[in-house]
């Protein structure tokens, strides 16, 4: 920088030499200087990141888009036109990815359930929807309505659950687990807080057992061991067994989230409710749980996300979720060796749904956080 003229020097009016321009005080250049090249470490980190981006992004784009084939009937067709990804496979099998082996003529039932699912979710997501209470009542009834639509009976043609697959299966397991694990989790959390030693011990034992073992072992129990405990000669549906296990598994985690919420409610709230003469259930229903559940919503959503991601594990006991569909389709000699495409496609699907849910959790957290902020 130029040496600035000192103030002690005297100049006649108008003869003062021009001062050097000030350094960058604003604008993109300053931002770049501050945020990318502020110090030596910073500059090194910037260089490293640029290098990292340079070695990963262009080849990925090249493989995934520029050199990719989007149509064709077999892997050979893809290779004939392009050297990169073969998305034709996904396009070719898209229906199986979505519906599994659900009979073609009955697929409108799946579509209708999907539509109803959206209707059922709306009142949960936004508070100021018109007729929210009525819609919430529908939300509570939705799992049963959808179950009837998908499985059939009562006037609809029955469809075997072994024909469920793909994203349909993911949603069935996810939605069932989510809707039933919350009430069970609340009951378990209340049991854990209960003053009755037997109930408390049982709840603690159940929760700790569930949280101590991996879901995969529970699924093996469901597929290999559960039939021993049923009366001889009875056998019940594999999907139903899996649904029960997934629900129990998620409710163990849900119980801990809700317990956190319950513990955050000051004792004064309980005492106030009791002093008004409310019994245990009324106190919980009207005073404690509304507050406890409200503060545990972010945790509840996170449990939902975990549960939703865990639905992929059902492939180890032979149910065909999107991953399973993809892997079994790869056994077809026309499409062998396309595992990366399948994994990336399924990963994108999960990313979109889980990222959406986690954004929603963040939004709620911000909305509910009315405390002191820095």
């Amino acid at each position, binding site marked *: 920088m130029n040496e600035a003229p000192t103030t002690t020097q005297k100049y006649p009016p108008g003869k003062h030499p021009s001062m050097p321009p000030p350094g960058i005080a604003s604008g993109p250049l300053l931002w770049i200087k501050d945020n990318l090249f*502020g110090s030596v470490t910073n500059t090194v980190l910037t260089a490293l990141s640029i290098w990292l981006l340079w070695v990963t992004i262009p080849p990925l784009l090249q493989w995934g888009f520029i050199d990719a084939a989007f149509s064709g009937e077999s892997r050979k067709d893809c290779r004939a036109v392009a050297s990169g990804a073969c998305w034709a496979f996904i396009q070719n099998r898209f229906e199986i990815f979505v519906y599994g082996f659900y009979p073609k003529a009955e697929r409108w039932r799946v579509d209708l359930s999907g539509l109803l699912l959206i209707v059922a979710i709306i009142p949960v997501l936004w508070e100021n929807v018109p007729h929210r209470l009525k819609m919430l009542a529908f939300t509570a009834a939705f799992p049963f309505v959808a179950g009837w639509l998908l499985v059939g009976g009562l006037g609809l043609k029955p469809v075997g659950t072994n024909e469920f697959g793909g994203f349909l299966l993911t949603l069935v397991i996810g939605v069932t687990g989510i809707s039933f694990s919350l009430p069970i989790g609340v009951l378990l959390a209340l049991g854990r807080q209960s003053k009755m030693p*037997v109930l408390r011990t049982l709840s603690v034992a159940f929760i700790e057992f569930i949280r101590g073992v991996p879901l995969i072992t529970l699924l093996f129990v469901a597929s290999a061991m559960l*039939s021993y405990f049923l009366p001889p000669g009875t056998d019940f549906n594999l999907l139903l067994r899996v649904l029960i296990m997934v629900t129990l598994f998620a409710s163990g985690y849900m119980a801990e989230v809700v317990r956190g919420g319950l513990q955050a409610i000051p004792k004064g709230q309980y005492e106030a409710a009791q002093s008004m003469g409310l019994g245990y*259930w009324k106190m919980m229903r009207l005073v404690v749980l509304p507050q406890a559940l409200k503060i545990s919503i972010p945790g509840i959503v996170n449990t939902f996300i975990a549960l939703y991601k865990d639905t992929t594990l059902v492939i180890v006991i032979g149910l065909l979720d999107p991953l399973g569909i993809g892997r079994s389709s790869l056994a077809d000699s026309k499409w062998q060796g396309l595992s990366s495409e399948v994994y990336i496609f399924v990963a994108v699907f999960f990313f979109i749904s889980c990222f959406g849910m986690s954004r929603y959790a963040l939004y709620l957290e911000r909305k509910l956080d009315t405390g002191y902020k820095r």
Partner: protein
Amino acid sequence: MPTAPPGEGVEGEAVLANHAAAAGKAGDTNAVLRVWRNKEARAVIVQILTLVILFAFFAYIIDNAAQNLARLGKTFSYDFLWEPANYDINQTLISYTLQSTHFRAMLVGILNTALVAGCGIVLATVLGFVLGVLRLSKNWLINRIVYCFIEFTRNVPVLLHILLIYGLILNVLPVPRQAWDLGQVAFLTNRGVFLPMPVPGDAFAWTWVAIVVAIGLTWAFRHWARKVQDKTGKIYPVFWIGFGTIVGLPALTFLATGAPLSWEVPALTGFNFQGGMVARPEFMALWLALSYYTSAYIAEIVRSGILAVHWGQTEAAYAIGLRPNRTLQLIVIPQALRVIVPPLTSQFLNLTKNSSLAIAIGYMDIVATIGGISLMQTGKEMETMLIVLSIYLVFSLVISAFMNWYNKKIKLVER
């Protein structure tokens, strides 16, 4: 299931008194009602009922199980554990042959689970702390990159990550003949990573002794330095002296005894490498995928832990004249750890439990050995599943016991 209100009871006794008066007139038709209206009595009844129902339920399913087993001509016994397993395991930390027993196979499985979980916990923690700190960096670019990585990793199922990495290792790494070699001693191939194996000589025992002695000395020195500091306020550079002792003393011993350590370098024979140590693709895939998946969660935990220490703490430390390093070491990190450790525990537990996904790529852990092939061969579904479940419970208990102990150690000591 009806549950009684928590049984504290001024109100309960008043009600009881009223009803006692009423019941006196109405005779014993109201006796049942009277007992029911007493909170404590009701609590007892509810609990007894619960127990009865529970026992009835267990009796019922155990009876069913007995009938089913009898119908299938099976018995419930663990004798099969001592029969030869007759199947091969591709990664064994202890000696294992086809003639080894199912029990031995189970031990191999347990060790494999422990190996991948232990390595995973170490790598995930290191990676998680680095990512968490980078996420707080002022550098916008690195901040964004780490953010994208964390979000992508957390929102995709771990099973997919494992399969993706496994696929990459098999398809992208070269066959052994064209192995990527690292200085002619280590080789990356799609059959695994081949590393040189240290072969300690007889005199190497002295180095072990030196390590133990150095740790003992460091511990004693730390104890003494703390005493001196409490008394006089003089601070010794405990970390550097300890570090020097622990590295220096064994190194000197090692050199003084004539460097009694040789390396067995893997060599290409035929289609594959022989000798040295090998980390098989299944292990590599599981280890890497579990580590980076968990590290994304740990990074967020670390970030929130550091942010949870109020800026005022740092200002206060500066105000009493602590330098930035000491501030970080004495003020910020201890407080951040208190926030970090409890959720970190559950991440370690998650990693251990997620290692059961090994079965999807054929890594031979507990689920794949005793709960997989042994189950298929012997048809002992109940026995093997019970073993697997209890082993995981033990793993979980051990990890949480250790982390609880650590948590207690760093906890705020309040008056």
